[in-house]
């Protein structure tokens, strides 16, 4: 351990604003990217399901993409 106490750790030897802002920005962007990717996925799946339901309700078969499974 490079610090004697928790206060000492947070103070970072007087460099607290620099060290903690750099780490906070990094944490924010990394976690933000993960949250964004998860929300994006949920949204895409919800849109797919909604469209599938709507097309089933209308009862008309949608135009099939002939290039299926490429």
């Amino acid at each position, binding site marked *: *351990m*490079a*610090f004697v106490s928790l206060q000492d*750790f947070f103070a*970072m*030897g*007087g*460099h607290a*604003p*620099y*060290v903690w*802002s*750099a*780490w906070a*920005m*990094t944490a924010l*962007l*990394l976690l933000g*990217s*993960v949250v964004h*990717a998860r929300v*994006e*996925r949920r949204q*895409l*799946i919800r*849109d*797919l*399901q909604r*469209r*599938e339901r709507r097309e089933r309700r209308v009862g008309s078969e*949608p135009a*099939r*993409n002939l290039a*299926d*499974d*490429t």
Partner: protein
Amino acid sequence: MWAFINKLRSPRWFYAISARLQPYFWVAATALILVGTVWGLAFAPADYQQGNSFRIIYVHVPAAFLAQSIFVSMAVAAVVFMVWKIKIADMAAAVMAPLGAAMTFIALFSGAVWGVPTWGTWWMWDARLTSMLILLFLYFGVIALRGAFASRDSGSRAASVLAMVGVINIPIIKYSVEWWHTLHQPATFTVTGRVAMPLEMWAPLLLMVLGFYSFFIALTLMRTRNEILRRESRKRWVRDLAGGEH
């Protein structure tokens, strides 16, 4: 080999295989970054000259590595897309750009914040700093070009061309500290030669670098899958899939 490449270009196959690979990279990224953070912030010894501000290195260096590696990956994906017309390569390139921009921003931000106590200034038109700023603008350019066309294909091609041309900036960033001796210090890690740091200082840095790379792979897999759902939403297999996914 060709059979494998042919499989690789199928979004459906990629969607399946990436689902299996993804968890390993998320676990590796989380474990490496957590251990690296605790070790680097609390246990690594303070630098004898810089004191504790030196701990910024544990986010600055990994972010700067990724900022450059992501651009190179994007350029490689662009070549694969342009030469072989492999759609999945373009999808991967598309999702890499925002993360690359975020990493470049982290490198610039943490560098500026580190510069205040160390150099007495947050910014200087030093060769390394300037070429990194250009990298950030290249990322913005790639992202903007992709969205600037009515047809997706035109946007993909324009973004690919800029990625392939812009990659010239990467060797400039790398050698900037050797060609122009201005402010920024030379590389911390080199392939050959010894690290000018004790083990307790560079080991957590190595963990952070590996953790950031795992994070990049995990997030790229995850978002490429999203991109497949978006672009292939009319395909039968994607529509069947939506029924079973939550």
